[in-house]
């Protein structure tokens, strides 16, 4: 009796985690290698989407730099996790002081996250004072800067060439573990006093300021945390895909993550989860169609881009007809509970909807 009562406030994250674990178990049992791959990368994506939700959902500001931090985390993590020999093999130009660095998987991931967060904290503190429109433009500029640096800093990132030879540490259950932790972290942030204060200033910055909420600091904390999650997620992804280029951390990936969040619903943690699941499933189906058409050689030039075309159309439709996404700002519960809408919605008063 007592346990159930204590668990009640954690109903949402537990429900979400239960869903995640169920999917993971099913995947493990079916033991189809393609499915395992899809699900593993889905949980890594989930981590990234959750990281974005933490910032966007609570502050209401679009952050285009998110995937940039993923890239920073990825490149940093592999510098630490790869053996010196492996590093030199892929990038003979690597800075000598970086070569001998070698740490186990987990610390490498964390350092990746910390570097991303550190950069975010330095860069973002002055940015947080900008108006919303300027903040979005700035985040986009940041993404471009990170991309250009990763693309040209050969001695660190191997430039535009593929960085290969990364160990495949990210297994299904590794990604599940991180997904679960992230779900709790993002939910707790949302329900914490920081999350509350951030949402208050999102809805009415003047009222919030008048009761002493320092919006700049709140945003900055959220931004940093979001970047940390992105960094760790990037490291995880690097150790799944085992070889990558800077283009993996630019606009295509940004689009996918953004689509997952917006379609699912940016104002709740459940939205992030649902969006990731739905979009991943949709993408696999669409990709299957693409592959079939290509195999049948129906299009002489190849049938590419179908997935993205459909996804972008769906995204536009969602923005027009249901801007708060599938979840509409609500969180999942088990069992389904009925409550007055006003108490339940997390969506902002005058954003998107």
């Amino acid at each position, binding site marked *: 009796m007592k346990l159930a009562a204590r668990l009640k406030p954690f109903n949402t994250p537990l429900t979400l985690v239960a869903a995640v674990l169920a999917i993971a178990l099913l995947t493990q049992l079916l033991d189809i290698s393609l499915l395992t791959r899809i699900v593993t990368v889905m949980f890594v994506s989930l981590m990234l989407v959750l990281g974005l939700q933490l910032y966007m959902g609570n502050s*209401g*500001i*679009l952050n285009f730099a998110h995937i940039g931090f993923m890239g920073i985390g990825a490149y940093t993590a592999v510098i630490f996790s790869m053996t010196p020999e492996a590093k030199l093999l892929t990038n003979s130009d690597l800075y000598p002081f970086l070569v001998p660095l070698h740490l186990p998987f987990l610390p490498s991931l964390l350092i990746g996250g910390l570097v991303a967060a550190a950069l975010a904290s330095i860069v973002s503190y*002055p*940015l947080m004072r*900008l*108006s*919303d*429109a*300027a903040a*979005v*433009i*700035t985040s*986009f*500029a*940041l993404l*471009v*800067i990170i991309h*250009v*640096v990763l*693309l*040209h800093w050969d001695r660190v990132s191997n430039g535009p060439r593929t960085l290969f030879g990364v160990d495949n540490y990210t297994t299904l259950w590794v990604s599940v573990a991180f997904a679960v932790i992230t779900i709790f972290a993002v939910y707790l942030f949302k329900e914490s006093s920081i999350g509350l204060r951030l949402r208050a200033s999102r809805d009415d910055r003047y009222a919030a300021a008048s009761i002493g909420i320092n919006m700049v600091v709140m945003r900055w904390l959220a931004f940093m945390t979001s970047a940390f999650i992105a960094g760790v997620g990037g490291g995880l992804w690097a150790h799944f895909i085992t070889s990558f280029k800077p283009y993996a951390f630019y*606009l295509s990936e940004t*689009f996918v993550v*953004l*689509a997952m969040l*917006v379609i699912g619903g940016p104002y709740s943690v459940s939205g992030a989860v649902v969006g990731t699941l739905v979009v991943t499933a949709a993408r696999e189906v669409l990709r299957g169609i693409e592959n079939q058409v290509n195999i049948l050689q129906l299009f002489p*030039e*190849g*049938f*590419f*881009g*179908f997935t*993205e*075309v459909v*996804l*972008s*159309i769906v*995204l*536009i439709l969602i*923005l*027009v007809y249901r*801007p708060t996404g599938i979840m509409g700002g609500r969180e999942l519960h088990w069992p389904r509970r009925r409550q007055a809408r006003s108490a339940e919605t997390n969506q902002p008063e*005058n*954003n*998107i*909807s």
Partner: protein
Amino acid sequence: MITLEFIINILSLGSLYAMLALGLVIVYGILRLVNFAYGELIMVGGYTMYLVTLYTPLPWLAVAIVAVLAVMLTSLFTELVAFRPVREKSLTAMLITSFAVSTLLQNGALLIISPRARAVTLPQIFQTSVMIAGTSVPWRNILTILTCILTLALLTLLLRRTVLGIALRAAADNFKMTRMLGVPANTVISTAFAISGIMAGIVSIFWIGRSASVTPTIGMPPLLVAFVATVIGGMNSLTGAVVGGFVYAITISLLGVILPPGMVEFREAFMFAFVIIVLLFRPEGLIRSKTSVERVG
């Protein structure tokens, strides 16, 4: 080092970037929307030129006109179908929509035409040069500068002498008040998108004219340029956009010459870092202007 050739190159590049930035600012001034799909309009221009030269025997000038029209229509179409329904909702929704439209157009080209580059036939004149004061100057550069001057003149005429133009400038000052005077919002916004499309169409002719080929991703570099030029010039001002375009051209050319080999590739990063600095300290842009006269047009 500052030769006539260098100067004309910069003027030509500046003209191109100025027209590019104008197309972006005209929509931003009214809607506060940075249209991420703007770069893709240039891609549409390129593919139109490719398709028209492939399937019709039209002379090159006609091809160019068709391309500009096609881009204008595409711009209007995106406004009607994607931006208008979300306009009332929020700026964030519009921004995400523009990002989605950008992805849609890019992948649409990928799907319908090909992921591989397509060669675009250029007119003979783009490959010839003329001798001026002892230096060989490509006709293409001269045409770019002349087109820019002509376009600016026409645009200024439109904005200052016609009621619609006055309404556009008013909308950039205060959109709500403009509506309250009875000016239909849709007319103003559609006109802005049309002008944006025409500018992108013109730019596409000269942009493609430099590389003679078009790919689905060709829209990204011009978007980034327009972006930077707009912020430098002040996101509210058409004159600012023009100046911003020239400043960008001068700066990036100078950086290309000044920076040592190891740093040159990071030019773009520097420009974008500059953007962030401008946004932080002088969000109204580098161009000092009385709030009154220089604001728009």
